């Protein structure tokens, strides 16, 4: 496959993004990929996933306009990193950046992962409440389907289960 930027060299880097089920692909040779991303000072080759990511951020004109239109500098109040700095280096300064940048971040996460909500592992200790909440959400779905099927005995069991979990949350 040939690089879609220079149309010359073989593509070394293949990047697929999926937005709402719509797939877009980039096929770039290494030198074009490098040009697309700003190099990080001090990085050995000036080329990494972060460069690529910031390159993708630059690809998105709508993204840039949105940020410009707001005219306000978005800054993480905890570590001081600005959103435009994040766009350059492709890395966050601290975990609070996720909150402070949440408006522009959610569409970005959707672009990178096709999704913006975590469904995987929850830490056992710090994630106690979250675990119950997720269980309740799943049980409620199940409850609705039992009601739809008019299986009321089963539904009653699920309702009790939900109540006991809600009790656990309020006690935690």
């Amino acid at each position, binding site marked *: *496959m040939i690089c879609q930027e220079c149309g010359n060299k073989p593509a*070394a*880097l*293949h990047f*697929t993004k*999926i937005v709402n089920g719509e*797939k877009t*692909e980039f096929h770039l040779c*290494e030198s074009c*990929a490098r040009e697309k991303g700003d190099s990080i000072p*001090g*990085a*050995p*080759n000036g*080329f*990494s*996933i*972060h460069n690529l*990511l910031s390159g993708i951020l630059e690809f998105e004109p709508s993204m840039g306009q949105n940020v410009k239109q707001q005219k306000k500098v978005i800054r993480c109040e*905890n*570590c001081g*990193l600005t959103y435009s700095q994040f766009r350059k*280096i*492709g*890395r*966050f*300064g*601290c*975990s609070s950046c*996720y909150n402070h940048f949440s408006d522009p*971040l959610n569409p*970005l*996460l959707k672009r*990178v*992962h*096709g*999704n*913006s*909500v*975590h*469904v*995987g*592992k*929850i*830490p*056992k*200790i*710090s*994630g106690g409440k*979250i675990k119950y*909440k997720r269980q309740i959400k799943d049980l409620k779905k199940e409850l609705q389907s039992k009601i739809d099927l008019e299986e009321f005995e089963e539904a009653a069991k699920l309702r009790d289960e939900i109540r006991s979990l809600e009790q656990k949350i309020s006690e935690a």
Partner: protein
Amino acid sequence: MKGEGADSDIVISSRIRLARNLTHYPFPMLSTNQQSEEVLEKVSDVVHDEDLKMISNFERIPLSEINSLESKVLVEKHLISPNLAEESRNGAVILSENESISIMINEEDHIRIQCLFPGFQINEAWELANHIDDIFEAKLNYAFDEKKGYLTSCPTNVGTGIRASVMLHLPALVLTQQINRILTAVSQVGLAVRGLYGEGSESLGNLFQISNQITLGQSEPEIIHNLYSVVKQIIEHERTARAKMLSESKTFLLDRVNRSYGILSYAQIMDSKEAAQRLSDVRLGIDLGLISNVSANVLNELMIMTQPGFLQQYASKKLSSDERDVLRAEMIRERIKK
């Protein structure tokens, strides 16, 4: 690493990496010297945990206490990242006795738990990494968000923080020129393909690393299952291509494999690119039963031992590129003829 594990004729290794961070500390990129030192201490303390000791004895190696050659060897053995070796402040690695578990501290994230198994054992690697993660989590407060999952320095890791990858040796798919079609298909199902030495590098010795790209919105078992089933299919394609070559062009194959074996046995100068290609040919010969006097383990060892850092450690001094080519040839000759 010995060539054991399922499908070890094609799958060299299986790896799981989990990225984790502590709450209340900036990520390593922005942390002060004191903060990164505190992170190092807190994470290092877990080494004394009884549950962790049940798994293996662990050794903690601060990067500041080893020289650049020693850290290069750790990179070539895939035990630490080049990033940790070159750039980290207060970086360290916690290594299990058999080196299948390595826990990096203060790399791009505060903690990176890595389990590396020979052959196709991605599920086993995940179970172990998950268990180690539980042990760490019982002692440390992880940065975690209900909606975003495990919060990581780079948004490409957020959510599960998992990177599951499998290293494949695919000479027959390369020789029969099917590789690009297959790799393009792989990249379309949310998986990434890389050459041997990670980002941006070309494939050396027909080795390809396939890993998940998506970390948010899929559970760990879903991510691993997706990778597993795609790799299973690639293994079948490679086996079919090998069988077809063996039945339709055995003489060509025998010539190629034996020619490479001959060169490896007698060459006096060998650069790393040629070594990788020749070793790949011989490895294929062993897997197909065309060469029987060398073991796959020797080949696996040589693939790592012929890297620049390893050679220099072996020689106990810095070597020029020409000197390395001579030593590489000598090392291969000695081991392959045994």
